[in-house]
């Protein structure tokens, strides 16, 4: 082992293949590893031991912010800053402020959801060791990969390679960091 490597990558051809391999890597106790798939695979999170995404919490925070923004903006403009009497209606009422606040709830939720997704995924990240792998193009097309990182405490070149081989991985290669 000359230069320190990022980790090991193994290729799988079928979805059931990677699913069962992921279960084995999970059970072997690895933490810093990943599956590269061209499609979202139903149940792979569980097979990998990935916890439920916390994106909805960020969405909720965005939604509450949006609703409060709408209500306070309308209160500020129509009641506080420049009260204007229109048709004898109250200066402020949550009734007529509702449609705009409702739309802003959705708008802010959308931004929070997408921003949260990018933040949690650490994107944009245009350079990544995995993207340097020659065959990674197939990972956006029809092949599936498991990557186990060298920084994982259980990582051991020989043993990890053996685990991936035993799990059915092919073309096991070292990734340069």
């Amino acid at each position, binding site marked *: 082992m000359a230069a320190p490597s990022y980790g090991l990558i193994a290729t799988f051809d079928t979805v059931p293949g990677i699913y069962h391999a992921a279960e084995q890597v999970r059970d072997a106790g690895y933490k810093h590893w990943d599956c590269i798939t061209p499609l979202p695979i*139903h149940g792979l999170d569980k097979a990998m031991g990935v916890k439920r995404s916390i994106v909805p919490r960020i969405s909720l925070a965005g939604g509450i912010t949006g609703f409060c923004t709408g209500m306070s903006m309308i209160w500020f403009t129509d009641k506080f800053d420049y009260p204007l009497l229109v048709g004898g209606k109250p200066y402020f009422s949550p009734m007529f402020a509702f449609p705009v606040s409702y739309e802003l709830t959705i708008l802010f939720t959308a931004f929070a959801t997408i921003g949260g997704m990018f933040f949690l995924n650490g994107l944009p990240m245009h350079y*990544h060791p995995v993207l340097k792998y020659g065959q990674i193009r197939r990972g956006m*097309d029809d092949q599936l990969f498991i990557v186990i990182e060298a920084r994982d405490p259980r990582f051991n070149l020989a043993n990890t390679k053996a685990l991936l081989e035993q799990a059915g991985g092919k073309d096991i290669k070292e990734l340069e960091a």
Partner: protein
Amino acid sequence: MAHAEPSAAASAAILTEVKPAVLPRAVLVEHGRSFSWITDKICGIIEEKTPTWWWYCFGVACFVACFTVGGITYLISTGVGVWGHMNPVNWAWDIVNFVFWIGIGHAGTLISAILCLLRQKWRTSINRAAEAMTIFAVVCAAIFPVFHVGRVWYAWYLFPIPNSNYIWQNFRSPLEWDVFAVSTYGTVSVLFWYVGLLPDLATLRDRFEAAGNKLRSFLYGLFAMGWRGSNRHWSNYEMAYLVLAGISTPLVLSVHTIVSFDFAVSLLPGWHTTIFPPYFVAGAIFSGFGMVLTLMLPLRAIYKLEDLITQYHIDCMCKITLATGTIVGYAYAMEFFIAWYSANPYEGFTFINRAFGPYAWAYWIMISCNVITPQLFWFKKVRANTTLVWVLSIFVNVGMWFERFVIIVTSLARDFLPSSWGYYSPSIVEIFTFFGTFGVFSVLFLLFIRFLPIMPMAELKAVTPQADPHGDGGHH
């Protein structure tokens, strides 16, 4: 009391285990296509040399779009008086065209959001193009309210931005609600579309890199944000997509509800009705599915996408058109019934006037296109004839434009006092402006099919049998 031992014959008749009936699932990708076939098929559309027909269509679309540019330029340089509306019809084609286009957009959101929540997997092959249709329809719709304000350089007054008059928007007005509804709708539609595109842009990035096209690889890569198909990313991505679908569903229902408030909150007979919100939403989805069929059937034929847009997909779209068209027909009948039942002479007159007054021609075009046409979709033979389905989808589009015309113009032209009745006809400037929007829409749509994947590859792969981790194609 002990049971007698059952005889051998009887025990064979009693099942030890009762399995639920297995219903065959509709095949969403025909001929058992592989993952790489899907990638090659969809990316091939972008990678191939620009076909000749595309250039012809693009040229025609640009020419037609010039009519909108010309109409608007003339309007701005001369003033709003160049449009045909005047007392008593002060709101005509501008708002008709706005509601028409925004309604078309709604099918895209319905397909991408509501059908996603309902786990209708057939949406996957049409959702990308339908979402693109939504965004371009919103662009066309936005032209009309922006320019009908008159002095368009003051259009920013629509938004609460501090200005030299120190005055704010009137948030009691449904028109102001509409500003927020439509701008939120446009923004969220773009975001939803972009999130869906993310994995496919990464596929294109890598394919163009392999092909040695550095520029396109860079551009697709820039927008792909470094997506690398990581399952830890997919986990957050899928959740974000679900949340976006969850918020787009109330959004799409609220947008056309608020559009209908523009009318329903007024006191004009024919507008002042509580049925408007659901009736408008159903009409929007009806017209949108008409437009989806109008666009997808030629695309399917040109790019030989029969394995991805199957007869099952066409059946589903026709059935939704039938269902929403029937709701629209019911709403027309119910409007008449309430006009009579309310015993309000003005309300009653408005509806008699719609069907038999000076605009009766528009009313009967509307009825024949929107009520009679979709009923043909009951027949399997009609749904299997793609040419006929395409022709009928055009009728739906025409009918829904006339619906908005009938609602808006007939109610304004003859309201309470006969002394203030009138008759509205559009001027050539309005006709040009509206005609041109079809060009604007087509230009955008043609650019879309040339540069972006018209179907979500990752989602299509996920509905194939080989995407099932348990290998039996239907188990969950």
